[in-house]
């Protein structure tokens, strides 16, 4: 494994390339991923690798995709989506007809994940807008990167035109917006054009297995941001092996034994 001081040079290049603040991520994780990638590309020293990386956008893109794990498992978790459709969404829609769903996303495949989110969301909206970080604008949807099943292909053909992306970069300006994707779904699909960071409240937040990547300080900051935007009765979904902060453990209750869905008290 390459030394951390050399890894920092690689991260500086990637930051320049993609605008990501890698200081939020766990150092050991980054060190391992970059070391494995450079070694697999047959570079024995990171200095040489970095010299190539500076001039190769495609290499940087590949490395970024290598660093961030795939999102697809979330969308094929039938238990989670069934619980959402049967319990969470009816509860939320009973109380409020304009839902604001927050779905932080890793850098690549943002539009693909937004589409899969749409496919899983019932009742399926008649029209929608999806708001994403400006960084996602750079990312092209590679349909070959995901293996669609027959049902998904059919829905893709039917609904692909509905995807209408708009950009903003305000809501989580205190943290790294490269990590975040905002999706707002409403039964009638009207989308607020702009949300001010200080008074945005959210109804449902997906952060499953995203906290794993963050360092403890960034995780704490991130959870505080989320907590400030979830009001009483609203829902937060985290991963099986992720934990709420000690303060949040007192103000959220688990509503499912295995899906790790929490409701704010």
């Amino acid at each position, binding site marked *: 494994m390459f030394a951390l001081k050399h890894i920092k040079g690689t991260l500086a290049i990637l930051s320049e390339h993609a605008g990501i603040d890698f200081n939020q991520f766990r150092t050991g*994780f980054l060190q391992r991923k970059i070391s494995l990638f450079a070694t697999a590309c047959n570079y024995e020293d990171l200095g040489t690798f970095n010299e190539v990386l500076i001039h190769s956008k495609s290499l940087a893109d590949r490395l970024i995709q290598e660093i961030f794990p795939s999102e697809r498992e979330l969308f094929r978790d039938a238990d989670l989506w069934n619980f959402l459709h049967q319990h969470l969404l009816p509860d939320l829609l009973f109380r409020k007809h304009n839902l604001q769903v927050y779905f932080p996303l890793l850098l690549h495949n943002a539009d693909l994940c937004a589409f899969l989110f749409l496919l899983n969301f019932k009742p399926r909206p008649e029209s929608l807008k999806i708001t994403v970080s400006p960084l996602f604008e750079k990312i092209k949807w590679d349909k070959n990167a995901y293996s669609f099943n027959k049902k998904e292909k059919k829905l893709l053909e039917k609904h692909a035109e509905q995807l209408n992306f708009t950009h903003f970069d305000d809501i989580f300006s205190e943290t790294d917006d490269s990590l975040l994707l905002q999706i707002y779904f409403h039964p009638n699909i009207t989308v607020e054009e702009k949300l001010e960071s200080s008074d945005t409240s959210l109804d449902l937040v997906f952060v499953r297995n995203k906290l794993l990547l963050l360092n403890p300080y960034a*995780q704490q900051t991130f959870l505080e941001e989320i907590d400030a935007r979830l009001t009483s009765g609203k829902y937060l979904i985290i991963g099986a*092996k992720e934990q709420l902060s000690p303060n949040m453990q007192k103000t959220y209750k688990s509503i499912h034994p295995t899906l790790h869905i929490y409701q704010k008290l």
Partner: protein
Amino acid sequence: MIEKGSRIVIGGSAGSFNVVLNILSNLPKDYPFPVILVLHRLKHIKNSFVDAISLKTLLPVCEPYDKQSVTPGQIYIAPANYHLYIEPDQTFALSVEDPVNYSRPAIDITFSSAGCVWQEKCVAVLLSGANADGALGLKTVKSCGGTILVQSPQEAIVNVMPTAGIKEAKPEKIFTTPQIIDYLLQGAKPRDSINKKWK
């Protein structure tokens, strides 16, 4: 002799479960080292694994949460469907990256990160299994100054994993299960074993 402050990491797959139970049943209640288990299993098999192992050991057993600290005298089992890393700050890091060697958790990942972080304090044990996962990790542990123990392929129920480990990491000695237990008990008071029969 195991150094003070060592950390034990055990990897195994097919045929390793009874060996793991044998090892753990012989560790005393005040065993001074943490023991981390990375065992291949079906992803839907969850807490029953913890329960089954808890029945055979005096040490507390758990699946660690992300960012949890590594504590001596505790047995940790890599959770199903997550890779388990050791971070430089001595905490666990879990990951949902793609499987490695068709496995998640992958032994290679835990061995490699443990070796890099703990260096000469890392003791890696590779047991029976049906693929080559763990072999490269074992090599990393050795190159970082750690100690490697490989179960004898003659003794292993499935010898692919230990054979690959021997080929890749070239350990100085091959261990039978009783020898692994004796090694791990160095520096610890042996338990008044209720499970001598396992030996």
